[in-house]
């Protein structure tokens, strides 16, 4: 229950799951996990597990939705009913509708949409287990899936949620920290170009804390970017062995 206060950062500065404030949860990433989709990826961050798949560029139905000079982008962020503590209705919630929108807007600046006029690129994100940071994990999975689908991109996307718990800024929050913490700031960047594609803040931060949080996020994003590259590399190295 919310009113019993939990201590989220102990006297040694360690967090509830034993991590340091600037430490990520264990990450696992895998590319090309689904057979049918043009591109797919699986991302695991602690207990958060997300699958993403990409279809396209393909023909748009109904036709009047097409744009003459670029591809349209359609994204769906969805949490499956068994992903949360209480069953979540499979119907899209207001939260999912909003997240689908911010994720789409993040992806629009990454894909070279103008190369595929009058088509659609469909990105589907399914959260199969939710433990905070699902939109950031979902966005990373989506960017890996897009790379896997061979869609030309400006950059990969690496994303992480910064939290403020017991007055301390922490990297990559988990569910307990999200629920009891004072702030939650998901941020997604194109790591090599240094551009922010998604930024939300849910909570109260002073201006200085916000700048500090941005710095902390960049640190986490640099690490996650390496994981993403490894995941892609691993897949292609395996493919090479098969060819021989």
């Amino acid at each position, binding site marked *: 229950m919310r009113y019993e206060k939990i201590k989220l950062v102990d006297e040694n500065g360690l967090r509830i799951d034993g991590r340091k404030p600037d430490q990520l949860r264990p990450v696992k990433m895998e590319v090309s996990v689904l057979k049918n989709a043009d591109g797919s990826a699986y991302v695991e961050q602690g207990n958060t597990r997300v699958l993403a798949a990409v*279809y396209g*560029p393909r*023909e748009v139905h109904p036709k009047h939705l097409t744009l003459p000079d670029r591809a349209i982008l359609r994204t769906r962020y969805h949490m499956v009913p068994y992903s949360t503590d209480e069953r979540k209705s499979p119907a899209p919630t207001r939260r999912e509708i909003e997240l689908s929108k911010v994720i789409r807007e993040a992806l629009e600046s990454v894909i070279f949409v103008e190369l595929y006029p009058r*088509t659609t690129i469909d990105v589907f994100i399914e959260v199969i287990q939710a433990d905070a940071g699902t939109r950031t994990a979902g966005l990373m999975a989506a960017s890996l899936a897009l790379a896997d*689908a061979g*869609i030309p*991109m*400006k950059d*990969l996307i690496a994303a992480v949620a910064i939290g403020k718990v017991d007055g301390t800024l922490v990297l990559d929050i988990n569910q307990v920290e999200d629920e009891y913490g004072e702030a939650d700031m998901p941020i997604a960047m194109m790591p090599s*170009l240094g551009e922010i594609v998604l930024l939300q803040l849910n909570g109260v931060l002073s201006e200085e804390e916000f700048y500090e949080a941005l710095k902390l996020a960049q640190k986490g994003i640099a690490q996650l970017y390496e994981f993403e590259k490894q995941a892609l590399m691993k897949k292609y190295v395996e493919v090479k062995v098969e060819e021989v």
Partner: protein
Amino acid sequence: MVLQAKFYSGKIVFPGEKLCVLEEFMPGDGTFEINGNVYSKFVGRVLYDFVSRKVTVVPLKKVANIPKQGMVIYAVISTTKDDVAFTKIFGAEKGVSFSGTFTGILHVSQISSNYIKVVTDAVKVGDIVKAKVLTSWNPFQLTTKGTKLGVIYALCSKCGTPLIKKRTKLQCPKCGNVESRKISSDYMLSGGKRS
């Protein structure tokens, strides 16, 4: 060779990875340029061409494709009218595949260099045609003019058996029905055996 060490071809690069600055190499296929820096668009192997001073990235996996002008594609006829046939483009030469199908339009005037009165004299619903893309717009305009282009697989309109090529006509091996088509020289079934 000391100079080349920085630009080592064959290295695996990722989208957004900086390859060089514009003064060193011009951006080629699979790359893009922002503020004088050249980056990769794909996961692929980088190729620095020291002769033409061009950098390209060869994708490691397939590239997302849509039909393009000049591409030779395979399509199945979905509906026909007197003057136009609607097709579904499902693939292209050299193993190029698409995500789903794209609509292609084959106008009666683009079927053959000979005069064709109605579309159904040359193609029928269910036929698979090899055609060339004329426009880069969806719906894509197609042409089957040329010996290599045209129907490559057709079914008998009476009994549904695959038709076999007999000189300039197609014949049904089961019911003997003879049909006319704009046949491609690459028609798949001839002389009773699959070629």
